């Protein structure tokens, strides 16, 4: 029996009069890959932003490792061990790949303004440790050779991996991936799936919001199907694929 790392209960969110998240409940078990799928406008991204701290829910609870985190600002959510990527990658311009990843390690280091103004005399050990740790992460993702390049000069597929590296640099317990296959070609999608599948061995729990069924069905342990802000089905990929309501939502039942 595995343990629950993230538990979402009775979550509600409105945008004006629009009830975008309507009583959502689900949980993420430790070291498993959970995917949230659903047609456009189902509330996937809103749900994601609620968990990541970019939005505060109108009501309901989100507990991470037993502590309520709903409404916390995103930097605090991040500090608790939750890292995220963005649907449209948001790498930092005018910074190298390695620097981008080192920003991801912010919370694993301590040096403040005064110490950093003192320079190498005061921060070289920590800087060295950060650099090594981040290079290891790039190595694991097979992109160590790109470390010195400007992150925004890379092709899109590589940028995605850099963003994954940046999220991993924080050594998160829960990793939130917002449509990791969006905009990738089939070969890049495959590589991304391979990298995500490896995460469990790093003791990382993953929550994916995704459109691309091929990615989701291949790597998810548990799938939550969202439609009009509510969970209409959940289970293993096989269970979800054979669920009539899910098929109806995806293929458009009203056309029948």
């Amino acid at each position, binding site marked *: 029996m595995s343990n629950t790392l993230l538990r979402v209960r009775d979550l509600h969110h409105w945008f004006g009069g629009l009830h975008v998240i309507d009583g959502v409940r689900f949980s993420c078990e430790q070291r498993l890959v959970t995917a949230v799928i659903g047609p456009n406008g189902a509330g996937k991204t809103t749900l994601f932003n609620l968990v990541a701290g970019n939005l505060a829910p109108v009501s309901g609870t989100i507990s991470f490792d037993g502590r309520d985190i709903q409404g916390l600002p995103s*930097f605090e959510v991040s500090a608790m061990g939750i890292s995220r990527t963005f649907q449209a990658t948001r790498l930092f311009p005018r910074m190298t790949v390695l620097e981008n990843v*080192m920003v991801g390690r912010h919370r694993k280091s301590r040096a403040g303004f005064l110490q950093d103004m003192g*320079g190498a005399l005061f921060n070289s050990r920590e800087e060295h440790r*950060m650099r090594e740790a981040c290079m290891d992460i790039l190595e694991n993702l097979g992109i160590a050779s790109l470390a010195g390049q400007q992150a925004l000069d890379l092709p899109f597929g590589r940028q995605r991996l850099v963003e994954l590296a*940046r999220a991993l640099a924080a050594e998160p317990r829960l990793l939130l991936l917002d449509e990791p296959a969006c905009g990738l070609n089939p070969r890049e999608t495959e590589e991304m799936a391979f990298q995500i599948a490896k995460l469990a061995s790093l003791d990382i729990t993953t929550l994916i919001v995704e459109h691309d069924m091929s990615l989701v069905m291949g790597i998810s342990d548990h799938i939550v199907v969202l439609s009009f802000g509510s969970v209409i089905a959940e289970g293993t990929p096989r269970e979800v694929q054979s669920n009539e309501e899910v098929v109806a939502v995806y293929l458009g039942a009203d056309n029948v």
Partner: protein
Amino acid sequence: MRAYARELPLLLLAGLVVGAQVSLSALKVDFYLTQLTMAAWYSLVALGLCLLMGYAGQVSMGQAGFFAIGGYTAAVISTTGMSSWLSIPAGVFVTAAVSFLVGIPVLRLKGHYLAMATLAFGFIVSRIIVGMAIFGQADGISDVPPYPLIAGLAITGKRPQRVENFYLAWGVVIVGLMLALNLVRSRTGRALRAIRGNEEAAAAAGIDVGRYKLAVFVLSAVYAGFAGACLTHFNAGIGPGEAGIMKSVRSVALVAAGGMANLWGTLTVSVVLTFLSLRGAFGLFDDAVFGGILVAIMLFAPDGVFSLLRHGIPSPRGFPRRAKGGR
């Protein structure tokens, strides 16, 4: 080695400073040293703003306000006989305190709104100075005594200590530059650049964006306030012109011309243009020159004047580029 390569440019700068003094004194034109000393103190303002605007991406149109707060605090304390040594520390402390209190509300604003709020702050400071008797109103404060350091050395513009003060100011600039360079190359510097790049992504990486913005805002104000306090002792006084809006615009123009996130570029542009301005090279058009530089930089060299050396003059933004080579 790598660590050595980092310090080498600073050593070269120190060499350049010594070379400048030796040759100007040998040529019997050491009156230039006075303006070079003033240019050095002023360049600290630009270096501080470079950290805030260039690296962290937060515009401040109110740096002259912080400069004036440092300067006037030092002037009031040293002319009322309160203390001979307290003036500069107090100037720095008051500047830091004011920037902290101002920073909390205004840094919630972004982009143009932040620029407007800081512009208004600078305006308020200059109005308070002109309006209050303790600040000498339109006359400013004069007869500020030299600031005593060790062994008879003092921050003063008096001739016998011209060379000493030249080295003093440049020593401070080199240290100030070194501290800033260390900062931008570190964890803190990466966090600041990340904030400039994308605030949401920076927060997602665990960076407390609000705290970092406030800290670098205070730091930039401290650079300005310290410069203001020291220059007030050097000039033996300060006037309300130092708090003027155009002085703030000047700093923004210097950082923009220096290449925004470029401390060396900012220092170079700042020293050259401030020196020329102090020599009266721009005549009555002093403010117009700096305003014009700002417009020209935004149009033709948004990455600073030094980028022109590498890439040539680009078409202004929004205008179609002419194809290079071929037809």
